[in-house]
């Protein structure tokens, strides 16, 4: 097996708790990402998801452990790791286009102005904002701002994209539309994406794998859940797939019942789980269980390979 694209080893973060003691938010967090994978991470508030993401971005430092991307240790921020922040973090004195050009120019300092502009416009068009490119962030809705932010991150073509709850502040309808756009751009660019979310449905729609975190303090990434649903997936039809309900039930069961006690395997790696191979969690759906028997054999083979 070749080395994974990104390896996180034994990461921990300790804060002073303000009373002279220490607070270990997360501990012994280890996982790996493969190139081109879309991975979501779900966990209750306070388990340190954002800190993990900031460490991956190089914006924060872990108290222990290390992160290796492409065989090189991550220390400090880099253009190879693009970040989309929850609060968009657009520069408010620039228009949408200028915000993207800001990123593109930083990425390719040698490019001509024309080149930078054409490239930036292409990505703005991808997120459907070609008509609003000369507006400033204050003149855009929350959804539009987040689209600009996503376009900026994708336009710099980083090897790893880190999304910190990008849709957390958006209403459900807008969120759905941008999720579709995100899937579209991602399938065109095949970038590796690591995303924090609180939304189980969003995670299933987007991810190849979903990391489940146990509760902090001393939070761990306890499980890595495979989402065995064929792509392209669509918001409108995904819930008709029986596997969708298997995964969803599994995730909800973890978050509601098991997130306080779950632990990784003995080597500290997340337990690999494929809910479609497990006996159904909720007995009220026997019909679906048999319906996905066929795909089960296939995914069982895949599970063995992994």
């Amino acid at each position, binding site marked *: 097996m070749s080395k994974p694209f990104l390896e996180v080893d034994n990461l921990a973060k300790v804060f002073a708790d303000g009373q002279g003691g220490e607070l270990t938010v997360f501990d012994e967090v280890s996982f790996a990402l493969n190139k081109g994978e879309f991975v979501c991470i779900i966990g209750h508030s306070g388990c340190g998801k954002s800190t993990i993401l900031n460490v991956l971005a190089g*914006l924060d430092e872990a108290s222990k452990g290390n992160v290796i991307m492409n065989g090189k240790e991550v220390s400090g*921020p880099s*253009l190879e790791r*693009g970040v989309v922040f929850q*609060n968009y*973090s657009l*520069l408010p004195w620039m228009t949408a286009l200028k915000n993207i050009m800001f*990123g593109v120019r930083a990425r390719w300092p040698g490019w001509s102005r024309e080149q930078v502009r054409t490239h930036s416009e292409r990505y703005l068009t991808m997120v459907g904002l070609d008509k609003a490119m000369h507006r*400033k962030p204050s003149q855009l809705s929350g959804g539009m701002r987040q689209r600009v932010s996503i376009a900026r991150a994708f336009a710099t073509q980083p090897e790893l994209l880190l999304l910190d709850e990008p849709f957390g502040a958006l209403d459900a309808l807008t969120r759905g539309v941008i999720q579709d756009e995100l899937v579209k751009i991602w399938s065109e660019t095949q970038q590796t994406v690591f995303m924090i979310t609180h939304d189980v449905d969003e995670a299933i729609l987007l991810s190849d794998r979903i990391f489940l975190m146990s509760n902090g303090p001393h939070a761990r990434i306890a499980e890595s859940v495979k989402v065995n649903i064929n792509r392209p997936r669509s918001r409108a039809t995904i819930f008709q797939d029986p596997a969708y309900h298997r995964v969803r039930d599994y995730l909800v069961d973890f978050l509601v019942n098991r997130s306080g006690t779950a632990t990784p395997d003995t080597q500290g790696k997340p337990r690999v789980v494929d809910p479609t191979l497990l006996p159904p969690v909720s007995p009220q759906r026997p019909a679906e269980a048999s319906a996905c028997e066929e795909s089960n054999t296939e995914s069982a083979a895949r599970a063995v390979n992994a």
Partner: protein
Amino acid sequence: MNSLAMRGSLLSLVFLVVMLGLWELATATSGGGGTAELSEYELLMGGAGDEGVARVPPPSAVISHAIAELANPFYDNGPNDKGIGIQLAYSIYRVITGYSMALAVALPLGFVIGMSPLMYKALNPYIQVLRPISPLAWMPLALFIIQDSERSAIFVIFICSIWPMLLNTAFGVANVRQDWINVARTHELGPLRTAVTVILPAAAPTILTGMRISIGIAWLVIVAAEMLVGGTGIGYYVWNEWNNLDLASVIFSILMIGVVGMLLDMALGRAQRLVEFKE
């Protein structure tokens, strides 16, 4: 007619007319008893009878004087008699020179203080001690060291306008949202490019506020400074006309000081609007 702006200007006009009317009336009655004995002061002034009694001129006299002065603002009949335009130009030149020098120092220094908590801690005591010093208190030292009254006046402007710009720059720079700094960091911008492309525009509204406060202070101080150093400038002009007991000129120049101060403030107000942004 019923818009707020219209009603506001109308009321302003009413106030003006009422004020000028009262003023005119007050000065007219006080001149009534001209037959009284001349005071020693009036005798000294060479006044005999009504003509020479020094009193605050009525607005009509000030206005007609203003029209005459403004008709030919740049005449120059020697050191004691220059047009108001020339005097104002001297003052504005000194303010702009001292102010620009202050800006050239305050901006980079403010960045250093704002970006480095260590420098803030190291320099803050000096700033706190130097800031409350009346700029005119520097004048004797400046005159001794610089040995030139013109440059000393410029130095006084420099020293009085530096503090608001320095403190506002430092404050603006220190309080740039961490999110925007993170954007610069994730895009691998170096410290200089971060300062120019992210921190400067983000702090610009705060910096401009400091610049606006500074220009106001500089304009206040130049009048006093020129009264001290003499020679040219609007401050000297006011004092000189007082010595001439030409009160119409004094009142006229006071008004001109106000108008120029307002124009300077408006210019920076414009600049401030240019760099402002909505989040």
